[in-house]
């Protein structure tokens, strides 16, 4: 496709076409509405760019010559003798290890200082897959259990062990463990050094600091909730009383903490009980995706949203937000407002509830919203939640505390506890204090335990420069981290940190529950944990196991400690450590005062900084799974972009082309307080006008082979006093264009109704006609029905519950050895994910409703892919699986061409060819690693089915419902995905198939898909409908 022929998107034309459409019309993207030639081409061709990647450089004759030569030489490969392979048994077999059977260990995944509980699958000592730990408060259980394959997978009392849900970060954390770019040795001023030298240097420096009571000693950590680490730090500060401990986390909770201080006079931690809430209002809070409790909240939220024939009640979610988020996409009502407007909205809401704030004069439309929401909230006193995003000013947080108190939610749906952090500090303030000391030359030794402040500190702190100067003055600067990154580069010492799956630790969850971080594998490289480093600073040499165990034997008492400890490790949580709810009282005058003193936004555009949905604050920049994961809503991969609304784009004359598989977009220069940053734009339906959003975490300069040099660094525009929103921003065209690899256009289906949705009212009135069907009943078939008395595997996905968090996509990638392909290949439509989450918009360009639909292989009973395969490489199993036989596949790609759902993926190149041996440790041994030239697709996790079937057969019984869970199903926080045997009338999947709002994708084509959907039910407020 020639790039020159592409046309820019004509937004006026798109708007016109959308306004003309009648009835609910679903659209996937701007390009689809524009209906350009390129878009047609994508629809019609399975592989629009199927020419060779060498195409442009290779002439036909050269190609034939090369082909001839390789054909001739191919014969020679058969002359190679088969290599003799080895069997290497252990010398001493550990008792619990059965070769060929995975073991599961409970641990906790730390992120931003908070725990998410995990059960990690280990094959002969190498961890391969992360599941959630259902006993952990942050990762509540899905409806299935670990297959009963062996006693080691059961609880000690013989009951099955439940699996919990996960998020993308937990799933992808396993890839970081095996990342070949992890640092492997201490470095001194950029040169290889050794642990012995570092230990000597540390001891010398500590002796020197000891003499001055630690006056020049500073320790900078990330957010710390670990009781053990906190105890070590306190001990250190006692030994060096003049030393200071600073904490900095770029994605921190400063505003929440300050807001609580305003409202209650003390910092408290807020815990929501969405499982008790009927009405929820989110003011810029992405509680379903971001934050330490997101998985739990998504689970609880979904528990009130399961609409079935006999349960027709559901909660209602209002979202007022400045950037389209995962939470906004499932809202029943969504209002896009700029951050400053959201704050005013909160003030108006507070006023309407009778709290004496000086209510602002809102525009008509917003006033209507406030009134409707207030009426709804007041009708659900004690059963509603108002929540606010971290990005807002502390005063807004304080207002929301006052609102929740006024609505009687405290103690019901909103609980307050003591802070979870070991030492709650203002992170921006703590860093500023350190910077002040560094500027004044008070710092002689700075130990940075984790984090990457040289990259992610606010621009005004000049942290990287100060740190470099300190190092140049021969200050003792040490950076402990997984990678030798931007901060390591300006430190005297870099020392490798142990991954959480390699070392012991402890950590608290969002509600205070303590978990022990249990390692699964010996450190791959000689490395240390923060615990060991602080212990070494205290002049000891203990390993992290001894440190953590010693602390807990003190805490839990010595009587029966071994037994308690074993239980703690097994369960993954320390019992009764959740923080008890506290009674606190809102100080109304303080809140009202703070609301009056909120700063006014400056003229110009408002800029929102958001943690990136995949690489977060930049810590996952070198994680290929997360880089290639299509970001929720934008579906961009391998880049961040400045999100602009269609109106703003038109106003500023910014263009995005009509798109082929990749989009060429305008690059703009964002100017703020004298800083400049170049960023590509992305026109985002649902983005408020005059408000642009840029995600953090990109523009890394020393991330590793995967993450270096992609995207733009939003931290360059971030200031200590404006961590989340900046007003008075200028955006001007830079005159360049830039390709972005978005996947929304890829694998487009062309058909009639792909998505169905309606309101709860409609469902209650006439559930049978909720879905507008093209066909009624079974279509006739030329062939007799297949007779089988065994299992008939099937899947139902409830689109009302899908929040588009991508946990399923990443879980599938981890379970099935799915490779990443890189930006250029994604731009050619060659990403390999077996699952995709299709996004549909409904309504106008500026604030459409968003709908999400996860699409996997449908395992059609009459599969169109099967008859066209010339070699019988894709055939049906008796249990209804559309099987893909890799060793038969010759790569004609006819199957993919004939698949109406576009779920087949082809290995155009040898993607799964880890040059680094360490990456081979990652692979799931139960799934074939596919080579080049082979087609692949969702297998319904056949390895899990087989394992469970074999286990049941050996026990001489039939499989029970819930014993086979696919990877996507296990991961799903909302349990939107249900898998099971549809022949068993009692199974959950069979019950869902009998629901009135159940439908199959393109069922009018009579493919009889086994994967089917429940139509989306929304619960809009009649008062706000039809505006």
């Amino acid at each position, binding site marked *: 496709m020639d790039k020159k022929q592409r046309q820019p998107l004509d937004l006026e034309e798109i708007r016109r076409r959308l306004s003309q459409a009648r009835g609910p019309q679903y659209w996937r993207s701007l390009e689809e509405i524009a209906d350009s030639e390129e878009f047609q081409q994508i629809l019609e061709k399975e592989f629009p760019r199927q020419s060779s990647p060498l195409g442009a450089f290779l002439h036909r004759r050269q190609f034939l010559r090369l082909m001839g030569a390789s054909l001739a030489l191919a014969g020679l490969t058969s002359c190679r003798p*088969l290599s*003799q*392979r*080895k*069997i*290497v*048994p*252990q*010398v*001493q*077999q550990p008792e619990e290890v*059965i*070769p*060929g*059977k995975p073991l599961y260990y409970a641990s906790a995944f730390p992120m931003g200082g908070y725990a998410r509980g995990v059960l990690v699958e280990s094959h002969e000592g190498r961890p391969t897959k992360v599941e959630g730990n259902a006993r952990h408060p942050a990762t509540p259980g899905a409806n299935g259990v670990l297959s009963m394959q*062996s006693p080691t997978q059961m609880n000690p009392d013989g009951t099955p062990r439940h699996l919990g849900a996960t998020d993308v970060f937990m799933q992808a954390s396993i890839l970081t463990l095996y990342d070949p770019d992890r640092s492997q040795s201490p470095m001194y001023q950029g040169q290889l050094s050794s642990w012995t030298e570092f230990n000597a240097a540390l001891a010398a420096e500590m002796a020197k600091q000891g003499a001055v009571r630690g006056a020049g000693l500073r320790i900078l950590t990330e957010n710390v909730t670990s009781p053990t680490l906190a105890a070590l730090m306190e001990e250190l500060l006692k030994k060096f009383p003049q030393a200071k401990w600073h904490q900095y986390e770029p994605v921190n909770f400063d505003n929440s903490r300050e807001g609580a201080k305003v409202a209650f006079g003390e910092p408290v931690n807020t815990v929501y009980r969405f499982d008790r809430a009927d009405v929820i209002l989110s003011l810029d809070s992405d509680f379903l995706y971001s934050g330490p409790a997101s998985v739990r909240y998504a689970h609880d939220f979904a528990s009130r949203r399961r609409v079935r024939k006999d349960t027709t009640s559901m909660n209602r979610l209002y979202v007022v937000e400045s950037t389209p988020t995962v939470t906004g996409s499932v809202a029943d009502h969504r209002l896009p407002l700029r951050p400053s407007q959201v704050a005013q909205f909160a003030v108006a809401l507070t006023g309407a509830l009778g709290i004496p704030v000086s209510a602002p004069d809102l525009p008509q439309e917003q006033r209507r919203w406030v009134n409707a929401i207030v009426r709804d909230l007041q009708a659900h006193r004690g059963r509603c939640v108002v929540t606010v995003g971290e990005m807002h000013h502390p005063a807004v947080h304080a207002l929301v505390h006052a609102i929740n108190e006024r609505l009687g939610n405290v103690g019901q749906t909103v609980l307050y506890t003591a802070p979870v952090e070991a030492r709650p500090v203002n992170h921006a303030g703590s860093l500023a204090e350190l910077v002040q000391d560094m500027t004044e030359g008070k710092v002689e030794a700075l130990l940075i335990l984790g984090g990457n402040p040289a990259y992610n500190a606010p621009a005004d702190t000049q942290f990287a420069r100060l740190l470099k100067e300190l190092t140049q003055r021969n200050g003792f600067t040490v950076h402990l981290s997984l990678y030798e990154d931007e901060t390591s580069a300006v430190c005297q010492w870099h020392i490798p940190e142990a991954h959480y799956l390699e070392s012991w630790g402890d950590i608290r969850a969002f509600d205070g529950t303590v978990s022990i971080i249990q390692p699964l594998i010996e450190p791959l490289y000689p490395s240390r944990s923060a615990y060991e480093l602080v212990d070494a600073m205290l002049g000891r040499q203990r390993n992290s196991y001894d440190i953590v165990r010693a602390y807990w034997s003190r805490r839990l008492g010595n009587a029966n400690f071994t037994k308690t400890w074993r239980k703690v490790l097994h369960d993954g949580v320390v019992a009764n450590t959740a923080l008890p709810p506290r009674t606190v009282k809102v100080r109304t005058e303080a809140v009202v005062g703070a609301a009056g003193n909120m700063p006014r936004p400056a003229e110009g555009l408002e800029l929102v900084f958001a943690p990136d949905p995949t690489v977060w604050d930049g810590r996952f920049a070198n994680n290929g799974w997360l880089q290639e994961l299509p970001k929720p809503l934008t579906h961009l991969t391998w880049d961040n972009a400045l999100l602009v609304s269609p109106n703003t784009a038109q106003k500023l004359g910014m263009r995005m082309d009509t798109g082929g598989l990749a989009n060429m977009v305008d690059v703009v220069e964002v100017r703020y307080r004298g800083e400049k940053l170049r960023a590509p734009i992305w026109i985002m339906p649902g983005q408020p006008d005059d408000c642009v959003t840029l995600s953090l975490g990109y523009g890394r300069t020393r991330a590793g082979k995967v993450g270096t040099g992609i995207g733009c660094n939003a931290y360059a525009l971030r200031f200590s006093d404006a961590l989340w929103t900046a007003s008075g921003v200028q955006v001007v065209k830079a005159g360049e264009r830039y390709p972005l690899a978005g996947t929304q256009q890829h694998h487009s289906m062309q058909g009639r109704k792909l998505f169905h949705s309606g309101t709860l009212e409609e469902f209650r009135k006439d559930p049978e006609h909720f879905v507008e069907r093209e066909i009624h009943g079974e279509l006739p078939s030329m062939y007799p029905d297949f007779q089988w008395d*065994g299992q008939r595997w099937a899947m139902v996905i409830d689109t009302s519950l899908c929040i588009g968090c991508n946990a399923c996509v990443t879980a599938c990638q981890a379970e099935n050895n799915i490779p990443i392909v890189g930006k250029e290949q994604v731009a050619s439509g060659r990403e390999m994910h077996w699952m995709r989450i299709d996004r549909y918009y409904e309504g106008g360009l500026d604030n459409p409703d968003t709908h999400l639909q996860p699409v996997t292989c449908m395992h059609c009973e009459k599969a169109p892919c099967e008859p066209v395969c010339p070699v019988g490489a894709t*055939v049906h*199993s*008796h*249990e209804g*699986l559309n*099987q893909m*036989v*890799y*060793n038969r596949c010759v790569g004609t790609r006819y199957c993919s061409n004939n698949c109406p759902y576009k779920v087949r993926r082809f290995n155009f190149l040898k993607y799964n060819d880890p040059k680094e041996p360490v990456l081979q440790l990652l692979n799931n041994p*139960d*799934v*074939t*690693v596919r080579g080049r030239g082979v087609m692949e697709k969702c*297998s319904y996790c*056949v*390895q899990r089915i*087989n394992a469970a079937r*074999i286990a049941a*057969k*050996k026990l*001489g019984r039939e499989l029970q419902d819930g014993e086979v869970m696919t990877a996507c199903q296990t991961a799903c926080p909302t349990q939107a995905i249900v898998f099971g045997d549809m022949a068993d009338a009692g199974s959950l999947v069979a019950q869902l198939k009998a629901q009135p709002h159940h439908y199959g994708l393109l069922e009018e084509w009579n493919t009889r898909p086994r994967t089917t959907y429940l139509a989306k039910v929304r619960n809009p407020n009649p008062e706000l409908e039809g505006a």
Partner: protein
Amino acid sequence: MPQVFHRSSNTLARLSIVTGAALLVSSVLIASNLSRSPYVTQVGAPVDQPVPFSHKHHVKELGIDCRYCHSTVEKSAVASVPPTHTCMSCHSQVWTNSPLLEPVRLSYLNGTPIQWNKVYDLPDFVYFDHSIHVNKGIGCNTCHGPIHEMNITYKAQPLSMSWCLDCHRQPEKYIRPKEEVFNYEYKAPANQLELGEKLVKEYNIKKEQLTDCSICHR
């Protein structure tokens, strides 16, 4: 115009067509037979091992049960080759000075595993599970042959897909009562097919399903 070719060319031409066809057919035949021959499949060829372990001695002469060493064969996909510790549970008492056992003693002493050579080596896209076979009445020597007679272990069967399918299509030809699975003296009775069909039903084996691709490939 004079004739270009001599009359004998006709014969030559015919001959070369026939020979060509014969060559083509025979090369296909040779290739297909060769690929099935023990020369390629290595059936019956003893494989050198770091320790010349004799199944004949241990199984037939001493009467040690298969599961004493291959302890996970009933539980897991892999039967597992025993850890050095298992060898030493006897050989710390008997044959303690045998030079043949030097590698075993060294392994135990140094903690370095013994590297055995694989005799039964399936391609990586085949997922064979020992446990389900022995739990459903497939005897050890159905696949492993007269293992109790082998001094140095060799492969007894070609492990080709057609060989696997022979049983997966008609398990009644080979199935035996569960209690006879580890009995290497077991001989199929005269009414094997009749008994086999009874056992297939009794053990709840869904025959049709056994030829589903994903039973072995995934």
